[in-house]
């Protein structure tokens, strides 16, 4: 199984996310993460989807996406041709006996402390997914209260943009 990240530029319209995810569901694509946002233009939204599968699954996913009339363009990303990052919020229990260790680890990862209370500490970390996985794994030695991560967002390196590859 490989992990693929694909960015999809879609019409910024009511129900489009539903069309895309409905197709993923009925064809049983194994979606790991998905993020949606506005873009530089009010006409378009951008969906970034990370999924696991074989090369032919990825080809099928891209081909099926191209069939949706609301999809304008699709771009596949890998770490070589793109910049990727993800945002993590993690809430740890604030225990006196391990507080220093947690804070030291957070510092090592350049995670920011965004909330601090007697019972808990919330860290914010923006990084590539692998580093976020590493940080979470490290935190598993202590008590994790809650985790929330956004899923990957990606942009191509250099001046080329997703709009250059258009559907139709």
């Amino acid at each position, binding site marked *: 199984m490989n992990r693929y990240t694909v960015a999809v530029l879609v019409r910024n319209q*009511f129900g489009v996310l*539903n069309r895309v995810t*409905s*197709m993923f569901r*009925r064809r049983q694509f194994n979606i790991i993460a998905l993020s949606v946002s506005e873009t530089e233009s009010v006409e378009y939204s951008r969906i970034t989807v990370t999924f696991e599968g074989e090369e*032919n699954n990825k*080809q099928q996913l891209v081909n*099926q996406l191209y069939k949706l*009339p609301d999809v304008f363009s699709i771009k596949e990303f890998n770490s070589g041709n793109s910049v990727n990052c993800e945002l993590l919020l993690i809430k740890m229990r604030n225990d006196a006996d391990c507080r220093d260790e947690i804070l030291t680890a957070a510092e090592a990862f350049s995670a920011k402390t965004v909330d601090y209370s007697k019972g808990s500490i919330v860290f914010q970390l923006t990084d590539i997914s692998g580093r976020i996985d590493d940080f979470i794994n490290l935190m598993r030695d202590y008590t994790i209260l809650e985790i929330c991560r956004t899923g990957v967002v990606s942009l191509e390196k250099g001046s080329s943009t997703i709009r250059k590859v258009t559907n139709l």
Partner: protein
Amino acid sequence: MLLSGSDIIVKILIEQGCDVIFGYPGGQILNVYDSLYKYRDEIQHVLTAHEQGAVHAADGYARATGRAGVVISTSGPGATNLVTGIATAYLDSVPLIAICGNVTTAQIGSDSFQEIDITGVTLPITKHNYFVGSVEQLADTVREAFRLAVSGRPGPVLIDVPKDVQVAMCEYTPMPAAVPDEKNAAKDVRIEEAAECINGSERPYIYFGGGVIWGNAEEEMLAVADKIDAPIGCSMMGLSGIPTEHPRFLGMQGMHGHYASSMAMHHADLIISLGVRFNDRATGDRTKFASKAKVVHIDIDGSELSKTVNAVHGLRADVRLTLRKLLPLIKKAEHPLWWESINKFKEAELEYLDRRGGLTPRNAVLCLNRHLGENTPVATDVGQHQMWAAQNLSFKNSRRFISSGGLGTMGFGLGAAIGAAYGTGEHTVLITGDGSFGMCLNELATAVTYNVPVVILIMNNGVLGMVRQWQTLFFDKHYSNTVLNRKTDFVALAGAFGADGVRVSTLDELDAAIKKGFEYCGPYVIDCAIDKDEFVLPMLPPGGSMDDIIVKVGD
């Protein structure tokens, strides 16, 4: 000119060249029906007995003519009654426009009377669908729907129009009918690669489907076949694509396909697949499917390439334009050894052929063949009768076999036959079974009301024959819920609907009945007695390969 939303809908239907549409009125579509009344001299509306009959009729119309079929329904149950028909069109790539009314935009989302989220319901079974939020978007939306339905790989498109949008006024500017998106041949380099592969083949086999019919590529396909000396087979959706009697044509392949066709495909070293997908009913066990063959696959839908069967050369392109470019690149060839094998397969097929006399399913279809005109559309329902029809019907022209392939919808036939009769102006035939006919026989009322000329041949065996066949073979003859033995008198039933009919139990009676049916103005029902233990053969067991083919069944 300033028009109401409902007038705009009907004006655009006329603008798109729709001469006849099918539907059923109701509360939230009343305005459109008022507009249909207003423009009744320019467009005909056929009122069916049930929305399902209407959508199948629009589908049958589209299959028979190549133009988009149109169906109209009200909101809620009217819209949900279209679902099976829309799914049928989706699975067989039929261009269909479904227009539904809905409650007012202010009421949407409040579970009001007869409100249903039909765009949500039909999301996975339409090529695209629209909820029209304002009358300003209406004209563009309907035109875009027509363009989408017929462009690329055709498919159904649904438009949901709230009542207030039908009422609201808007400026309407006439426009020419929608033009399908431009078609493209594959890239030259890809065609050259495919040609090289074809030129290296000793045992080529051409396998085509509905895409060749929708892409009007029949001539080009025959030219390629002649040049490389290849036999031709097809999926069920390809039937009628080339004349049945063509010397290169081996017939439909697959689960109940012709033995020679399936064997030739199994032994080919190259399969040129044109506008066809590799459905499980066509391939059986995919790991053993045509293991010696390279696949060159041309399809307008890129997602069909290497979806289930790996293609060495997958070309996402218009099949006709691509074949035209391919033709000069392939070398003229002859394959006498290959044809020797094919002729052996054909001899074997003849050996297994059902040659019994009397009113057997095969003889019934052959009898019907003698009465078919060059352009007679033949619709079917789904089950044993459908396979007997697919195996034995003889076609001269394209678009004359109207049958639900992908979804396998029992109850499809009568509506579809009505639509095909409207589309072609031909006296039409429906081959059905007592099970399938029982599902949607209410449309007899429609056929009677509108004097639709359709000969209805019910192959009546008193059982759900296809399911029963599986129970015989794979479920130790446990005939669970497949024995109908209903007391329905189909001839009396025809009479009650205002039609006519006759019961037949011999071939001579059948012959006379079909003759009479073609002379009769309106629907004519022939209740044809078939033995309940008849089998559809040959049969590839589900998930089986050519090694498992069943050609004969012992007692």
